[in-house]
């Protein structure tokens, strides 16, 4: 009877969160314990790699780094220009996102039909629910429960997850709903005459406020033209392969119209990235 009471209480409000946090202190060690073999394996793998392969990788990475640096230079200029233009339009623009690198714990907490993963950063690091989680390729999901030493991330492919997206080519807004499979998103809310083509990049639209705007989400799959009803997309993020994820703090306060504020924010972002 007590459990029925608990069930209804938690269904109605979130006042039990501290209780859950306290209880999680007792069970979180189990998550880390289960993760231990995988962690050790990857460490061993890392430590027995040969000198030459490391040198090669280093060379590749530094090349990539310099390439990215050049791209970033251009990006910064574009960003400033964008802010200036937006100021002209008397519009505001979200900037100043901070990220925290979190590592996936190799545990399988949910049933196989839900796409929920656990990461090793929790409220002790300031993580809170409804933060966006990204990897190097695109949006992964959102934090849906933060415990003191771990937090649960619902992937964008979970059947109960939906993310507001935008077609990058023409700005068409729609919603991508998870399918339950790690390599597919459904786009069920498109009219028959929607301008969408195979290969279109879907980016997050920032509507709804959970996800920051402009991160790549998925690429539209090929579909037969008359069957506009069942359009699917493949997520950009490597949902089943990446161990390192980034939790994003997006500044909810829009930047004011004065462009003088932007360098400071850029500095803050650089600092966070370091």
């Amino acid at each position, binding site marked *: 009877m007590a459990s*029925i009471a608990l069930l209804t209480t938690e269904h109605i409000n979130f006042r039990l969160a501290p209780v859950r946090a306290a*209880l999680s202190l007792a069970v979180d060690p189990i998550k880390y314990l289960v993760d231990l073999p995988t962690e050790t394996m990857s460490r061993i793998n890392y430590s027995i790699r040969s000198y030459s392969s490391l040198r090669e990788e280093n060379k590749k990475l530094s090349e990539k780094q310099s390439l990215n640096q050049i791209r970033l230079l251009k990006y910064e200029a574009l960003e400033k220009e964008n802010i200036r233009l937006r100021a002209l339009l008397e519009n505001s623009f979200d900037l100043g996102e901070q990220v925290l690198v979190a590592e996936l714990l190799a545990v399988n907490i949910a049933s196989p039909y839900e796409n929920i993963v656990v990461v090793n950063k929790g409220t002790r690091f300031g993580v809170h629910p409804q933060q966006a989680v990204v990897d190097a390729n695109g949006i992964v999901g959102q934090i849906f429960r933060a415990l003191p030493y771990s937090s649960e991330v619902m992937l964008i492919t979970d059947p109960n997850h939906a993310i507001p997206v935008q077609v990058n080519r023409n700005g068409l807004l729609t919603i991508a709903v998870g399918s339950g499979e790690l390599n597919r998103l459904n786009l069920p809310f498109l009219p028959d005459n929607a301008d969408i083509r195979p290969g279109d990049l879907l980016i997050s639209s920032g509507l709804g406020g959970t996800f920051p705007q402009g991160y790549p989400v998925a690429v539209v799959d090929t579909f037969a033209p008359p069957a506009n009803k069942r359009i699917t997309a493949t997520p950009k993020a490597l949902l089943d392969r990446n161990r390192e994820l980034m939790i994003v703090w997006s500044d909810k306060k829009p930047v004011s119209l004065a462009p003088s504020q932007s360098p400071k924010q850029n500095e803050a972002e650089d600092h966070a990235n370091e």
Partner: protein
Amino acid sequence: MPMNKSYGFGRIISTIAFAMCLKIAPLPTIFAVYNPDWVLLTLIYWSLAMPERVGVFHAWTFGLLTDVLTGRMFGQYALAYSLVIYLCLSLHRRLRQLPFIQQALFIFFCLLLSQLLLFFIKNIQYTAELKPTFWLPIFVGTLCWPLVYTLLRFVRLAKPIKTD
């Protein structure tokens, strides 16, 4: 068997912790659909073997911990586990006399009850899909029962460590 009250508590806790580890073990999806509810199997064993030590309250507590561990809504596993353990406790005298196959049949119904309760509660929260693989953990759990039984019996009857 010593009859003092604190006997075997460390063993119960450690076996259940181990069962929790197995429950969240990172298996590939092909195997994950077969992964039975180890915590419930362990609890059933202890409630049959030591009904004076493991009761509905223990089941409820461990159920709550499982809720937290697996990120379910509070009380979901607690409700399922305490109901199943209540059944086991009220029938434990008869169950101990039964042959192995009938015992396994009873375990099958216990697992079925718990799985259906969990599904029912989940269905209240949001629409859950009933896939054919949903039934697999129950069968696998039933098949694993002899293994669990023998292992835990071994744990229970092993000589206590001197430092205890």
